[in-house]
């Protein structure tokens, strides 16, 4: 009898739990990247002020940088730590969405942090909508979504121009409008253009105050599009009950994991939105469709796990069978043991990449050529003919014997290297001065990049001829030296020995270790591990590498990533497993030192991944 009573109660309890609104069910289906923190209680002690310094919080900065977060931790923000915190991002050709979803335990506390939001009218049952200038905060049951929807500039311009010209207006900028393409900060822009009359740049206000000028119209179009896009997303979420968990089983499965955090990136949708493919989409739609099919199923899924002072990030790259067959062939390669002697055990960072380009080429030829051959387009047909002829005539043994595909790289630290400088000397009698060339020293990051090679005679042939053309190439006993090759100031050394072609700016390696570091090379234990792992391995000692890495040599995105991890200490290891037709697994292990909370380290990693995936 007891069972009869308890069973329905148990069922009811489970059903209620399953059906209860969870933060993940508010993630829009348009999200392409999602970082999900399962155990956000880890973050309880992180201050809001610290949290909002992360790049993934940038969309809500203007709400949170107004003093409302001072002295508060996440715990004081009304957040339900029993639900996931999901950071999402998505982009299409027409819009960009970003934001996060979270559980709410105390609305009053939540609005003390998000104190700039005003309540808006809601057409959805049990849904409260709040808005600020850029963002919207939507509450449903015990969960909330903070979202920013931004229509693309192209779409706004297109719609605005359409309305503007349809109303019989002329060029809004006048006929002689021009602009300088230099990248200007707001400060410089204002300074430099201070002498230009506003009327020279901006369209004149209409005579009729009821008639909008171009920029007023553009603002209206932007707001309208923004509202329309948001409405579409909210209709999906609250009327059609469509969200990323209902639309993508892979994401739903990922959400069932009990790891501290998960990661989802739908690469196939990134492919669809790639702007560079517009030509294929419009001119060669069938080819575009075929290539798109190659990328179907291309998704990257990850799990974060915390173990004492270690964070493990297990990543699975999934792909379709046809693309997978190319990867499988490419990664079917034996580890080249020749590289081990060239990685010093004290190197603060290194990677090995072990692929078989010959097999990858043959498979790609087999998979891609039929797609190209079926295209009825004269340009494509000519390209196919060229590729097929090259395939017949080129000596593939020589080509892939020279570039087998496997490689390694090391970061050997920042060293003082000798350069030349012009110095002035003064005559003490007359103060006349002359120039003399002297030696100088400058800091330079020292890198080594090596490629597996069977045909060492081919680079040797090229270098010998180049040395006859210019004295900048010098042949030495064990290496070649290319003077002033790096930034017109430092030499590049080339070592063509032991089945490897090595490029390095490390003079010590070329002069003293042309056959490797001997006892100072990687340990046998590490070497065994590298041999047994998959096609890719990497190691970074963060304090020894990123903290010393000169950002001047990086582009903005790379620099942001390095900066996100600067000041940290710890070690990162990356390894891959065997590649199959359907997936490849990677494992990134981050073992950290210091007294920072593990939650903070996890946020640092997530932040780096966010910058990388955006």
């Amino acid at each position, binding site marked *: 009898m007891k069972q009869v009573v308890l069973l329905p109660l148990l069922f009811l309890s489970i059903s209620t739990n399953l059906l209860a609104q969870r933060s993940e069910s508010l993630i829009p289906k348009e999200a392409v990247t999602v970082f999900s923190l399962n155990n956000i209680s880890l973050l309880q002690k992180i201050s809001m002020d610290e949290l909002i310094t992360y790049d993934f919080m940038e969309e809500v900065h203007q709400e949170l940088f107004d003093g409302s977060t001072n002295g508060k931790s996440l715990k004081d923000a009304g957040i339900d730590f029993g639900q996931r915190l999901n950071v999402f991002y998505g982009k299409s050709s027409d819009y960009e969405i970003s934001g996060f979803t979270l559980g709410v335990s105390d609305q009053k506390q939540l609005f003390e942090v998000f104190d700039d939001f005003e309540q808006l009218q809601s057409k959805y049952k049990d849904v409260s909508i709040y808005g600020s200038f850029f963002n919207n905060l939507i509450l449903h049951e015990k969960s909330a979504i903070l979202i920013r929807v931004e229509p693309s500039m192209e779409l706004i311009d297109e719609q605005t121009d359409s309305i503007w010209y349809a109303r019989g207006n002329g060029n809004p900028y006048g006929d002689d409008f021009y602009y300088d393409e230099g990248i*200007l*900060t707001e400060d410089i822009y204002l300074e430099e253009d201070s*002498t230009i009359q506003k009327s020279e740049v901006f369209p004149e206000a209409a005579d009729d105050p009821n008639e909008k000028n171009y920029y007023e119209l553009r603002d209206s179009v932007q707001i309208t599009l923004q509202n329309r896009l948001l409405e579409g997303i909210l209709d999906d979420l609250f009327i059609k009950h469509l969200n990323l968990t209902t639309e993508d089983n892979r994401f739903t499965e990922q959400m069932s994991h009990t790891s501290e955090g998960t990661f989802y990136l739908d690469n196939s949708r990134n492919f669809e939105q790639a702007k560079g493919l517009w030509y294929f989409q419009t001119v060669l739609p069938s080819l575009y469709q075929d290539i798109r099919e190659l990328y179907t199923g291309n998704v990257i899924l990850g799990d974060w796990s915390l173990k004492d002072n270690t964070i493990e990030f297990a990543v699975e790259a999934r792909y379709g069978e046809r693309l997978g067959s190319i990867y499988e062939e490419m990664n079917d390669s034996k580890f080249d043991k020749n590289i081990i002697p060239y990685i010093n055990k004290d190197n603060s960072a290194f990677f090995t990449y072990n692929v078989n380009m010959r097999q990858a080429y043959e498979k790609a030829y087999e998979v891609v050529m039929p797609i190209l051959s079926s295209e009825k387009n004269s340009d494509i047909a000519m390209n196919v003919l060229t590729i097929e002829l090259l395939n017949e005539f080129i000596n593939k043994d020589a080509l892939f014997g020279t570039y087998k595909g496997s490689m390694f790289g090391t970061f050997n630290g920042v060293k003082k290297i000798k350069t030349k*400088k012009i110095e*002035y000397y003064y005559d003490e009698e007359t103060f006349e001065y002359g120039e003399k060339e002297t030696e100088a020293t*400058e*800091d330079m990051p020292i890198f080594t990049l090596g490629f597996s090679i069977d045909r060492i005679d081919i680079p040797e042939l090229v270098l010998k001829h180049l040395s006859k053309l210019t004295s900048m190439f010098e042949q030495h006993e064990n290496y070649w030296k290319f003077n002033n090759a790096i930034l017109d*100031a430092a030499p590049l050394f080339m070592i063509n020995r032991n089945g490897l072609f090595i490029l390095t700016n490390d003079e010590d390696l070329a002069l003293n270790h042309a056959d490797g570091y001997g006892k100072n090379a990687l340990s046998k234990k590490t070497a065994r591990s590298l041999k047994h792992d998959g096609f890719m391995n990497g190691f970074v000692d963060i304090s020894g590498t990123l903290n010393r890495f000169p950002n001047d040599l990086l*582009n903005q995105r790379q620099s942001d990533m390095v900066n996100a991890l600067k000041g940290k200490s710890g070690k990162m290891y990356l390894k891959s497993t065997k590649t199959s037709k359907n997936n490849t697994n990677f494992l990134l292990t981050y073992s950290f030192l210091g007294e920072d909370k593990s939650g903070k380290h996890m946020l640092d990693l997530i932040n780096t991944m966010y910058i990388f995936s955006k």
Partner: protein
Amino acid sequence: MLRKLIFPIVIISLLSSCIELIDDITIHNDGTGTFKYSINLSSSRIKVNSILALDSLDGKKVPSMGEIKNKITAFTTALKGQNGLSNVRSEFDEANLILKLFVDFKSVSQLEQGIKNSIIAVSKEKSSNELNESWIEWDGKTLKRSVPLTAFKRSNEMTSSDVDLLKTGTYTSISRFDRSIERTDNGNAKLNPSKLACMLKVNTFDLRNNNKLIENSITLIPFKNK
């Protein structure tokens, strides 16, 4: 606004590690003379070339080597057209990153005005307070000098790491005359044995913090009429 005028050079100069600047002026008794100016970045080639390899830095566009050369040519051309200036030429050693400028002038005031006009010609600025400042004055007996590149005054915008890099740079100001120097008011200035030339050498980091370090008033012995 001098900073903007020589933007391509200055952005590199200010961001580079070791910079050597020399301004060398010769003034004859009749007021005519020669002005030479050198910017030497050869000891920072790696740093400068790595910056030149970027598209932008700190939100500002990094000029290409071609753009820098065009700017130098434009400035030299503008200078050639100025009243009272002759034998204007510039040399840019791209490999060693050394820029030299040579100008003969009829009078110091024409030299100053000619440089100001040329700055305006190659920059978008049509006027500025800094261009109204005088950095050199000559009354036939006394030469008053300050920093021709007031960009250093603007170097407050530099980051602390860039400022540190200025510590190894030097600015040398040399003034030469046909007759002996009676006195100078800058205690750090050095006279040659014949007292016909005066040299003042300061550290660029110190100069950034105190641009008065390079200021000097040089008084010559009275001119003897034959």
